[in-house]
């Protein structure tokens, strides 16, 4: 048994934290728009957003690898112009994770916005408030459980990703070797002790995260009485 290395966990949480932060700002306007729009394009956009849920991670990983490698126009442009290498780097991993976890941020937020009392939103418009002010001061504060669910699930889901990370990031220690990869590698070299320790930590963290979400939502629903 080698010495226990916690770097993969730190890397996993760093990746998940950055991904969650980026996705929050991208998903917020999109989920708000989806919840309010009557556009005919809505189903198409919803389908595209949800794709990562049904696609095998290897498919997402393959396309991202293909798009970001120096053989592709985008990848070569980034590498030649800015000197940014995307494949097998942490940056590349963040981009891949953003695609992979996108629906987990959009769907709870959209659900939260859609469950709001439509008249409450309209009352804000009638009071002369813009859509942006309404989103910030009326819609967002009234979907706290959905907000918490979206951020926590996105975070947890990113920590738990494996296939996409393996394809886009490989397993470079300190750069792309996240916890799930570390477990896989430990099993591969038959280091079951470390695999056990890593797995138990992942299991415990995942359980605690989910438990805190459900406890908060349970408490909030009870406190708020009937949420319309």
């Amino acid at each position, binding site marked *: 048994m080698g010495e226990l290395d916690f770097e993969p966990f730190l890397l996993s949480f760093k990746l998940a934290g950055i991904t969650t932060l980026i996705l929050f700002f991208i998903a917020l306007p999109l989920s708000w728009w989806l919840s309010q729009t009557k556009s005919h394009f809505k189903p198409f956009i919803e389908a595209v957003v949800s794709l990562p849920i049904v696609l095998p991670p290897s498919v997402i990983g393959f396309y991202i690898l293909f798009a970001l490698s120096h053989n592709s126009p985008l990848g070569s442009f980034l590498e030649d112009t800015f000197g940014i290498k995307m494949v097998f780097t942490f940056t590349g991993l963040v981009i891949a994770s953003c695609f992979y976890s996108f629906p987990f941020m959009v769907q709870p937020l959209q659900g939260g916005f859609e469950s709001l009392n439509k008249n409450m939103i309209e009352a804000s418009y*009638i009071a002369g*408030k813009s859509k942006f002010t309404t989103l910030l001061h009326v819609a967002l504060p009234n979907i706290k459980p959905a907000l918490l669910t979206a951020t926590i699930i996105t975070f947890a889901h990113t920590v738990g990703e494996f296939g996409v990370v393996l394809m886009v990031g490989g397993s470079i220690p300190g750069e792309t070797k996240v916890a799930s990869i570390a477990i896989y590698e430990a099993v591969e070299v038959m280091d079951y002790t470390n695999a056990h320790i890593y797995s138990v930590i992942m299991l415990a963290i995942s359980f605690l995260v989910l438990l805190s979400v459900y406890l908060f939502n349970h408490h909030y629903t009870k406190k*708020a009485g009937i949420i319309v």
Partner: protein
Amino acid sequence: MIKISIQKQLHGAKAEMTLDIDVSIKKGEFVAIAGESGSGKTTLLRILAGLENANGKIDVFGKQWLNGKINKTPQERGIGFVFQDYALFANMSVEKNLLFVNKDKDLAQHLLDLTQLSELKNRYPNTLSGGQKQRVALCRAFMNRPKVLLMDEPLSALDPLMRTKLQHDILTLYKEFEMTTIMVSHDPSEIYRLAQRVIVLKQGVIAKDSTPKEVFLKTKGSQKFTLQGELLDIIKADVIHIAIVAIGQQIVEVILDSSEAQSFTIGQSVAVSTKAFSPIISAI
């Protein structure tokens, strides 16, 4: 003067219908819009608020709200709107609900005083009763000092006692702020108490447009005293039958003979009438 001339295709519960309204409302007038559900009352109100599109023109005190080119947003119309389900901002206290609309603390305090809500100003909507919520919503609608106030069945979710109190509040505020008010309602006593004019919609068009007295006082021949109600039950008592009729919030009994009893079906709408000199009126 508010001039409304609008058309809109509606997908009603029963069939397609066209909302086709052509009406003028004087400044400061209190108008009630009545009619069966699905007759287009709420849609008309929402079109006035800018919450729904329509063809035609809306001209409010010389300003164009809607014509072929212009369609002002709800934000630009500067109206007050009271929803049936209160629609309060759940994340804000009573006072914040008012101040979110307009940061005029004095006006907020004045409105809360008028409606006896001052003591509740730090409470959150989910801790209030229905009547309290609707009073907050009413105050909130006045915070921008709107020229036009729109109310969509504001009191229909409240019990009769609370309705009377809120009718009083609405009248107080209406008199103080002198705003043109349009209220959707199907409670004749409420309309009679509050409105100077009632417009009855039927299938998307105006069926009646008159004073509440003319629209609701149903007199026929020499029978000057007519009440509409629902036949709840017919009870046989010896040789006679007793019909139980619900009129408004009251239950009354009317004697029937057996042939009459057979001609009615339970649940149907009925008129209970008598000559005007028969009923006895007394204070309670």
